[in-house]
């Protein structure tokens, strides 16, 4: 009879866990928005599901992404997750072989050594016992690392680790007890019956034979109770990420989109956070400004437990560094945006006084400088010079008057107001029937790309200038000026424009910085954080400036008027927009030659 009352806590806990988890899954999937549901239906029976299963294996079990960023941390996660998973699977196989049926009681695999005191008297018994001991050893080594991480995170290469909630502490403590208790229980049984493997038998030998008979049952009870506590705490603790991440990976592979409004997919993302704290180290508010309680890990936690404060939602540069580093791949900036979006405020249009802009027909290119570029007139002058040099038939849409692209409002959550601006601008742009829209501001660029439905392609001036250079419509004088390039958040991480500016800057002496491309820093001037104290903003700027100008470049080049304005005040190096440095080095060619070439060129 493979039963003893001590299996009850485990069994009850496991039933509770499965009940709660499946209820939650059901509720979230029911709360997906229409588009997300459509994507699920569309892709559930496709190759994408197989790809997702591969990813589940790689990320939920092996934790490949964490391993890539920090091998020790990766090993810790892998040993616990994959080790435990295998322990359950191998335990199940072992129990089935022992019982001679696939439908043995579920606890048999878990408490196998207690019931199977008759040693390895079944097929592959010896080998399976060895495997189980080996897996337990791996898990225990991971556990040791986890304890070290909690006590001193710097030993595992982390500057800061997450501060935990009460449920997390309960779950964490029980998790820490589970495997040592299992080891002790199995070893005690092994010392009495000799049914252990290399690990449990060895430990069993160390247990005095006088104590073993009395210690055996209490240890199995304790093991079962620790499982019970962990199972019951799991759905309310960060460990909910273990089952949820599986659903997240499936949905992501099926093409679910975070979207504008909160949905079941938001809940799934919130619950998939393991609170590893990697985002804290990635966040400039932490390492440059000393704020360590608003990072994505805390935002996600508070959002999940519905204790979100305005401070946590709004004190964020939305630079995307955390999303970039997140090993689970959560779309943290987009989720935060969802919580910023205001539902109750009606869409009052604040720009009634603006005079309508008459669309100009018959041009090839529309140039939209954007509000921020109007605050940096040298960029506008440079762009005019470049257009002229390339002989472009363009229309400067917001030269005299114009309205904002809408993105700053959107980032503060005024979706409806932002949409009004989108409608207004779209009408002007689309009715011009031009071939290309060029903007100087990465914020506008992202807005045009993502929020507008335009009848023409959009380019940021970095892309456009690169094209003009590649097609020989403008050429640059050779220059030895040393430059370092700063990737603006919205253009780099936001729109993946990394190579174009670098191609342009090959004409100069380009120095690399430690914070390139995806790893680039925010200049501190982000429009997305309306509550950050100015002094802290300046700290962020000065830190970024210090890093960028380490190798003493003559010019710090960026491609965003806002970054330029932030850095100019920092007084560390000459700051120029990429359009300025190009315009300043234009080689003047005879206009005639150009107009001939114009016919054959792609760029208008």
């Amino acid at each position, binding site marked *: 009879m493979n039963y003893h009352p001590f299996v009850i806590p485990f069994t009850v806990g496991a039933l509770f866990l499965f009940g709660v988890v499946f209820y939650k899954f059901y509720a979230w999937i029911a709360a997906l928005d229409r588009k997300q549901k459509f994507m699920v239906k569309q892709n559930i029976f496709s190759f994408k599901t197989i790809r997702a299963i591969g990813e589940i294996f790689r990320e939920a079990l092996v934790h490949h992404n964490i391993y890539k960023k920090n091998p020790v941390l990766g090993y810790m996660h892998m040993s616990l997750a994959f080790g435990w998973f295998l322990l359950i699977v191998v335990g199940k196989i072992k129990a089935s072989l022992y019982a001679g049926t696939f439908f043995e009681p579920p606890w048999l695999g878990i408490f196998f050594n207690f019931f199977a005191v008759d040693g390895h008297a079944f097929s592959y018994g010896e080998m399976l016992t060895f495997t189980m001991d080996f897996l337990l050893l791996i898990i225990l080594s991971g556990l040791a690392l986890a304890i070290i991480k909690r006590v001193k995170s710097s030993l595992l290469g982390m500057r800061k680790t997450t501060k935990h909630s009460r449920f997390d502490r309960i779950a964490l403590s029980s998790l820490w007890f589970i495997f040592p208790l299992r080891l002790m229980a199995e070893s005690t049984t092994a010392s009495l019956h000799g049914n252990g493997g290399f690990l449990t038998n060895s430990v069993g030998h160390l247990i005095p034979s006088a104590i073993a008979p009395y210690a055996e049952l209490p240890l199995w009870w304790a093991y079962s109770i620790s499982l019970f506590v962990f199972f019951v705490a799991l759905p309310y603790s960060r460990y909910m990420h273990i089952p949820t991440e599986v659903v997240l990976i499936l949905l992501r592979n099926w093409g679910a989109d975070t979207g504008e409004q909160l949905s079941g997919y938001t809940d799934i993302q919130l619950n998939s956070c393991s609170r590893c704290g990697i985002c804290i180290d990635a966040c400039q508010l932490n390492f440059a400004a000393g704020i360590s309680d608003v990072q994505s890990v805390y935002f996600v936690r508070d959002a999940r437990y519905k204790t979100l404060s305005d401070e946590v939602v709004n004190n964020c540069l939305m630079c995307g560094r955390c999303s970039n580093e997140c090993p689970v791949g959560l779309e943290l900036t987009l989720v935060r945006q969802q919580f910023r979006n205001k539902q109750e405020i009606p869409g009052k249009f604040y720009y009634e*006084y*603006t005079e309508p802009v008459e669309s100009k027909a018959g041009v090839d290119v529309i140039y939209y400088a954007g509000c921020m570029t*109007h*605050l*940096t*007139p*040298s960029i506008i*002058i440079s762009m005019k010079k470049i257009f002229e040099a390339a002989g472009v038939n363009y229309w400067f849409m917001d*030269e*005299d008057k114009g309205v904002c692209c809408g993105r700053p409002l959107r980032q503060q959550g005024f979706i409806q107001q932002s949409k009004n601006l989108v409608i207004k601008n779209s009408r002007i742009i689309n009715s011009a029937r031009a071939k290309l829209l060029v903007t100087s501001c990465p914020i506008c660029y992202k807005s045009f790309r993502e929020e507008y439905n335009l009848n023409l392609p959009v380019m940021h001036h970095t892309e456009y200038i690169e094209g003009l250079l590649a097609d020989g419509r403008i050429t640059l004088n050779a220059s030895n000026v040393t430059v370092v390039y700063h990737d603006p958040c919205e253009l780099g991480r936001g729109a993946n424009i990394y190579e174009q500016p670098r191609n342009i800057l090959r004409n100069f002496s380009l120095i690399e910085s430690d914070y390139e491309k995806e790893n680039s820093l925010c200049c501190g001037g982000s429009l997305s954080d309306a509550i950050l104290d*100015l002094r802290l903003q*300046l700290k962020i700027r000065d830190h970024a400036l210090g890093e960028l100008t380490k190798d003493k470049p003559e010019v710090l080049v960026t491609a965003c008027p806002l970054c330029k*304005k932030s850095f*100019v*005040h920092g007084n560390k190096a000459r700051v120029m927009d990429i359009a300025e440095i190009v315009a300043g080095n234009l080689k003047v060619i005879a206009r005639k030659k150009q107009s001939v070439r114009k016919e054959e060129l792609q760029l208008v």
Partner: protein
Amino acid sequence: MNKADVVVIGGGPAGIEAAYNLARDNHKVVLVEKEKEIFGHMQTAYTLFPNFQDASEIRSSLLQKTKHGNITLYNNSEVTQVSRENDFWRVQTINGLDFIAPAVLLASGFKTFDARYKEELGYGIYKGVITSVEFEEMLKVGKIQTANGEKPRRIAFLNCVGSRDEKVGNHYCSRVCCINAVKLSIEAKKQLPEVEAYCFYMDIRMSGQFYEELYRKSQEDFDVNYIRGRISEVAPTIDNRLQVKCEDTLSQTPLKMTVDLLVLMIGIEASEGTARIGEQVGVNGEYNFSKSISLHTADNKTKHQGFFLAGTCKRPLTVPETMADARAAALEIDLYLKSLSQ
């Protein structure tokens, strides 16, 4: 190493006035000035508010004072190092001068805000955008004109450029620009009666004696217009004039205006010397201005014995305030030196 009773750093109104008063009390004063010429910012002044006194009169009076027998003036002598040596202060300069004295007076003054930081205002980009200092120089030579040498039809003055501005990190009010804009607009109207003058402001702060009266007078007698709003953008027009944009916050409407000259009323910041010496000696306060030991009761003393402050190295001050402060500093130093000899 040369010995002196006092080394005064800075040959502007504060430094000269203090040096003169110390010299009259029979102290040997060394006055070091970093520039070729003395007078500091008084050099460029045309007239002084609120009574339109000719600045050249002030300059000649100051020049006279430097001629006192107890004063030795050194030009082109930027101070590089101020250090404490036993009970003395040692002051070294860029041209190799080396003084030792029981007392030092810091009168290193202010610098004006670099308007290029506010790129949206177009300074250094559009020729019609000038600073209040440059406009004062135009008044001085009697030639108010645009870059093309034409007479301006409309002049705009913009207050608070680099003052009360979070974005450039200066939260404080520079105190003198409001009244200075009133003075400049009146002077402009005196020289060019046909010109239209507009002052753009956030608040008009007329705190000094006769300031409010002058503000009224500028409107009643000189037809100067005041618009409450900060200019946000400047752009060129086709005919090479300037279009300024702002919100008229009293009527709550956006406003565009074409002007020929835009005069930026640039604010006051601690000069580089003030910041550097303050840092060396350890008397740096907010915004790099130097900090006295007590604003109310010992505003010329610092936490270091024998190291004194006078004038705009402490905060934005008007000319009369600066001169009075310099005399007070001279008195403090006199008492200090006497206490040493007893």
